[in-house]
């Protein structure tokens, strides 16, 4: 049994504080905006690449997963990952006019759930490279079957190739890269007043 101190301080009260709520919205906004720049560049490139562009974009799938592990690592609350993904998708669809339309909300929720499961299993305590990698793997793996249904990938000859590329991308970009970003943010000190900073103080 670990000492009670190691438990995230925020896990005690159920209601989200406005600070945590706004942080998750801010993450959704910033990532929504960065995705939007990214998509602009990407659409031009994928049109230029023709049919190969459809497959090539899977290499970057993990980047859509980033916001969930980052939100979870900072606020360390149940549902933070799902919530962050859904907010980011709302920003994309409603304010930036995403192509997928409101079906993106469903995809985002599934993606967030996948990314969140590994953290939830450690009761939001373990933030090792392994947990992040698993988070990326599940995030990409879970949403794959939904995307496959939505985009009609079943029955295509490149079905397994799609799955493999997406899983690898999920682990590397959506998992390991998220840890790099979280550690860098932690070092700057901007997240000191959130659960991540409190936990670091409790350990020190």
């Amino acid at each position, binding site marked *: 049994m670990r000492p009670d101190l190691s438990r995230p301080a925020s896990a005690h009260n159920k209601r989200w504080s406005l600070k945590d709520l706004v942080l998750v919205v801010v993450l959704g906004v910033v990532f929504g905006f960065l995705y939007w720049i990214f998509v602009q560049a990407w659409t031009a490139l994928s049109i230029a690449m*023709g*049919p190969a562009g459809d497959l090539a974009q899977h290499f970057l799938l993990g980047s859509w997963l980033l916001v969930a592990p980052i939100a979870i690592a900072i606020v360390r609350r149940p549902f933070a990952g799902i919530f962050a993904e859904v907010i980011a998708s709302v920003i994309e669809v409603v304010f930036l006019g995403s192509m997928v339309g409101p079906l993106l909300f469903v995809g985002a929720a599934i993606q967030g759930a996948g990314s969140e499961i590994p953290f939830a299993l450690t009761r939001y305590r373990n933030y090792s490279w392994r947990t992040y990698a698993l988070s990326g793997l599940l995030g990409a793996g879970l949403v794959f079957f939904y995307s496959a249904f939505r985009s009609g990938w079943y029955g295509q000859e490149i079905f397994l190739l799609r799955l493999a590329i997406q899983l690898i991308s999920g682990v590397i970009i959506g998992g390991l890269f998220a840890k790099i970003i979280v550690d860098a943010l932690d070092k700057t000190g901007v997240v000191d007043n959130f659960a991540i900073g409190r936990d670091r103080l409790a350990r020190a």
Partner: protein
Amino acid sequence: MTSELITTRTGAAPTRPPGNLLSRRNPTIKLALLFIVSLVLMFIFDPITPLVLYLLALGAIAATARIPVKAFVLAHIPFLAFALGLLIVNALSRPGDVLWQAGALRVTTEGLLVGAALALRTLVIGVLSIGFVLSTDGVALMTSLHQHARLGSRLTYAVLAGYRMLEDLPREWQTIRHAHAVRVPLRANGKPPRSLRQYGRAAFALLVLSIRKGERMAQSLESRGLGLTPRSTWRRIPLTRTDWAMAAAVLTVLGVVVGLSALLGVLRGYQVLG
């Protein structure tokens, strides 16, 4: 957007938003309809049904939203590009009766049909999304979700604050890029480097800046009493019989088209993918 914000700030009366027939409709109802139609389309895999729906949606939006033709066509480009990609990939990557072959490339009838179905589905969702985005104000949508869909006031105002932040982001982005450009070593031609690394640095700076700003935002929202009940709304968004009539009309058309398509034997479901 700016004029809309100004009217929101100065005129608090529960007036009807100005504009055309579609932009006067309740945003929550519009979003719900967009969601339902997209969901139903997800289970339709023949090209005819979405084609009919696309033509109907195009006509309905053109008639009610008064979007300038040029803007309407331009907004179609990303959807058309995406649809074309879907058509080509499916035509080339599905087993079936070979229609045309050249070396490793072969087009199958099955692939072409599924590809056309998916492409047309993208266009239906696309034209409806264009209609939605161009006829709906973001602030009105959040207010309406708060009023009509029981979205909590803390969440509503957090998202609205996020929306204000989003409007500032392009400027912040430029400022950061300029600040970085002043300090980086220049390239041989005297211009700042445009590498992925530089973009990454700017993106991280934007993230840090926004988190710091968000913390201040949360404090000021809380100090102004957000979260206290009961909550009054400054400018109420109307939800009228016309809105319900629109919902009924859209759902009826959807039902009739899908029903007729099933009756005529055109409708194909998921089993097409084999």
